């Protein structure tokens, strides 16, 4: 038997019962999962001894996701993530855990909200790492089929996530990533996509990000066609001081679909953040 050093607990924050996992000690590194998935996507970061030596890595499942509960009365209304609710959730969680100037790293919807945090909460954060960040993604498919009684939501969401990964990523990790998507509750992925594809358009404001207050790192997998390297490059082009790298051979879920390759890109960034501290 081999025990991982990750510890999972439940926290009651306002009206939510939130599941979170953590490992390591030092600078808090708060990791945000993608739409319709959960914190298991960061299993490799939490298990990386090089990182946990200097960083307290924490990831929480958003309400409705993973092992976190939906709030009472969820059965009476549609779940819809918005910039406001997402930001409040992240900052509320960081405050509740007493995280002092955390680094926040998010992927996909997390990569988008990181840009929002850069605009509104830069002084409270040590650094931001956006994975697959784009200022906006236009809808290019009919997402209503992902939440339809006549289509198995787990299978449909899984198939969608499957395609966003790189064909070069290891099969085992790709299919684990698909599995997380297959376990999402009905309407949760589409509820997150409301923020991603409808409400959370920040194209007009990214130029106001001040990286002298909080450094911004952007990493994007080249096989992602949802938030493509071109989309992230457009962001980097408008944010002075943003550091952008394209991750060769990776797709939309770098930390989960190919942990080893991803850690190769992440470790030097964390070293740089640590050196500034």
């Amino acid at each position, binding site marked *: 038997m081999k025990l991982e050093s990750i510890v999972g607990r439940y926290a009651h924050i306002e009206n939510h019962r939130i599941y979170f996992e953590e490992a390591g000690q030092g600078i808090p590194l708060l990791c945000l999962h993608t739409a319709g998935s959960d914190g298991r996507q960061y299993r490799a970061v939490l298990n990386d001894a090089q990182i946990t030596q200097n960083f307290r890595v924490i990831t929480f499942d958003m309400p409705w996701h993973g092992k976190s509960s939906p709030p009472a009365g969820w059965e009476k209304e549609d779940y819809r993530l918005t910039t406001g609710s997402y930001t409040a959730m992240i900052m509320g969680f960081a405050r509740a855990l007493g995280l002092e100037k955390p680094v926040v790293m998010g992927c996909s919807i997390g990569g988008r909200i990181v840009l929002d945090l850069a605009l509104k909460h830069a002084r409270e954060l040590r650094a931001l790492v956006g994975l697959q960040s784009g200022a906006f993604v236009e809808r*290019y*498919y*009919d997402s209503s*089929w*992902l939440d*339809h009684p*006549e*289509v*198995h939501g787990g*299978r*449909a969401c*899984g*198939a*969608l996530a*499957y*395609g*966003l990964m*790189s*064909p*070069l990523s290891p099969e085992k990790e790709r299919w684990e990533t698909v599995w997380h998507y297959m376990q999402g509750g009905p309407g949760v992925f589409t509820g997150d996509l409301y923020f991603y594809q409808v409400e959370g358009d920040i194209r007009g404001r990214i130029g106001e990000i001040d990286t002298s207050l909080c450094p911004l790192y952007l990493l994007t997998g*080249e*096989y*992602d*066609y*949802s938030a*493509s390297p071109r989309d992230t490059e457009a962001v980097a082009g408008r944010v002075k001081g943003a550091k952008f790298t394209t991750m060769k051979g990776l797709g939309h879920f770098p930390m989960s679909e190919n942990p080893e390759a991803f850690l190769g890109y992440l470790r030097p960034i964390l070293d740089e953040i640590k050196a500034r501290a």
Partner: protein
Amino acid sequence: MIESLARLVNADAAIVRWGRQMNETFMVEVGDQQYLLQIENGLIRKVEKGPFVQRTWRFAIRARREAWEKFWQKTPAPGWHDLFGLLRRGEVAFEGDQRVLMAYLQYVKLVLAAPRKA
């Protein structure tokens, strides 16, 4: 490529299992050339080559020949590696009953990507 689909898919139990409940006929268009794929419990029973007159199909997936050629590369380039990647590029059209396509999306993706392994 399409002609080899039945052999490639039917010999691969890991693909067949994703379509085990599927009993449908769907169209694949490679440029001007139409094909009808008849699926029975996840096995490809028949691949017919058009042109067709008055045939029924559940959904159709249409793309240029050049797009399919890029899609079928052993290691496709970014954005050419998935049906929804082609959709994002405006390089494919999904027509007909979207419910059935979405219900069997993983199977359809694996079937259409099977020539990469040939």
